[in-house]
């Protein structure tokens, strides 16, 4: 390791260049991870907040809450929730919002004792909105009263939370047949229909899977490209050093000493790049406007960083193999004669 460190500290330019390249690749990966997590949050944070394990939806809904219509039964033991996209007018201006109606006395309630007609709204709905303001549903003229703010996003739009009492009042006001979007409960209660987990529900949000798959693919490619670049650099560095390494081999220095030095350098450079990238990603998160969907999930960026370190060590096997193959005689004097 001393050997590896001495080389790095005395050949700063070479290793700095390698660090910068590695850092930029890892940085791109962590930024994309932040963006992916930000978009994932923006797409389904309202569902993340729900604290139930399973949901029963209308079989024809294709897993989408906004397309699930379940007739209300006399069974009062089942908790229900309803989700519906609305167009509301705020000071005469139309805004798209998703209404989440949740049980008022359960572990997934909106968190406040709301009166009928009252809603909690995501601050991104409108900067001008204040508690006590009235929102009017464009289709039914139902009047929602703003009772407070609470964050919640669904399908890249703001969410309004309310109680089931308000939901049924809303349906009644607009002369619609009473229905709910999902029944909530443990898996054992649900033997038929379309039963989904919370993660299934999130992944069924329109565009969610396509969006996340794209980012996953980008990250996977970046990991592979980064590993290739790093491997290529270390391979070239090893080729450059072959005369000296061949001499050391001829002298009798154990190949593992040289191999360890190389592994040490790979681990130090990539780990430093990963740690720096995560730090810079947090700084970026603090600096960019809140309107940009960006979220740093330490677990995620650390996971991709760890994968990068692992793949780089794996890539280092190529220069290590080359080291092992060095023919000392060839290095000393070419052909033996």
């Amino acid at each position, binding site marked *: 390791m001393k050997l590896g460190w001495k080389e790095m500290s005395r050949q700063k330019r070479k290793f700095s260049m390698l660090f910068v390249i590695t850092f930029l690749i890892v940085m791109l990966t962590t930024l994309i991870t932040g963006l992916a997590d930000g978009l994932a949050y923006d797409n389904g944070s309202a569902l993340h907040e729900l604290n139930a394990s399973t949901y029963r939806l209308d079989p024809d809904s294709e897993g989408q809450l906004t397309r699930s219509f379940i007739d209300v039964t006399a069974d009062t033991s089942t908790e229900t929730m309803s989700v519906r996209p609305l167009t509301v007018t705020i000071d005469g201006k139309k805004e798209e919002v998703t209404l989440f109606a949740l049980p008022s006395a359960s572990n997934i309630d909106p968190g406040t004792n709301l009166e009928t007609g009252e809603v909690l709204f995501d601050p991104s709905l409108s900067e001008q909105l204040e508690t006590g303001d009235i929102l009017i549903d464009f289709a039914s003229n139902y009047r929602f009263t703003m009772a407070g703010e609470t964050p919640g996003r669904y399908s890249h739009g703001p969410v309004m939370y309310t109680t089931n009492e308000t939901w049924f009042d809303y349906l009644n006001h607009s002369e619609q047949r009473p229905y709910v979007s999902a029944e909530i409960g443990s898996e054992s209660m649900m033997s038929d229909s379309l039963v989904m987990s919370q993660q299934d529900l999130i992944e069924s949000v329109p565009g969610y899977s396509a969006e996340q798959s794209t980012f996953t693919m980008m990250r996977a490619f970046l990991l592979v490209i980064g590993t290739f670049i790093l491997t290529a650099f270390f391979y070239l560095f090893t080729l450059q050093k072959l005369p000296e390494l061949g001499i050391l081999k001829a002298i009798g220095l154990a190949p593992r000493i040289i191999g360890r030095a190389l592994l040490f350098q790979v681990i130090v450079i990539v780990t430093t790049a990963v740690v720096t990238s995560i730090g810079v990603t947090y700084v970026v998160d603090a600096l960019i406007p809140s309107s940009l969907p960006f979220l740093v999930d330490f677990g995620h960026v650390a996971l991709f960083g760890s994968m990068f370190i692992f793949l780089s060590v794996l890539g280092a096997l190529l220069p290590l193999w080359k080291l092992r193959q060095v023919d000392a005689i060839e290095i*000393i004097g070419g052909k033996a004669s």
Partner: protein
Amino acid sequence: MRLSHVSHQFDGHLVLNDIELHVSPGECVAIVGPSGSGKSTLLYILGLLRKPDQGAFMMDGRDVFELDEEQRRLLRLLEVGFVFQQAHLIPYLTVLEQLELIQETEEVDAKQRLTDLGLGHRLHHLPTTLSGGEKQRVAVARALINSPRLILADEPTASLDYENGRRVMELLADEAHRAGRSVVVITHDERMLDVCDRVLRILDGALTEVNN
């Protein structure tokens, strides 16, 4: 050390033919011969880098080519010192660190050894700041750091001017005479031969003694 009935082929051509060579402790032997005569192959066999097709290389009464690769590596590290045509120093290690990297025994004080070779003021210098003669003296010091019994030098003066070359040859001969090591030097430079105790010529794979 003794080479006994050593023969070796290279590309179907007999490079060494039934070679017998004995070098006593304290003896400096020079081997001369035209290019392609088998000098280097002989050196690689003496340096345990190449196993001959036939014959034995006896050290301490055992054939070293009976040892496995790891044992031969250790023998090279501890019992054989190499000096090459080029110094081949590690560019990012100081003069002192070049020796410390391969030092396995406390018997020799690396600083003292370098000082004895006139490099006391260069201990913490990188190879890029050294002259050709200084680099080669570092290479000699590196070859001696584990107090090997056999020193092999392959054209050690080829990249040096006469004065520096002579100094390196005298260093090697002095090591043989003073410390009782066996020294084998391959050289083209006939002006250096008088430093050695014996001169052998290799021609068409056969080794013959040259009368001074």
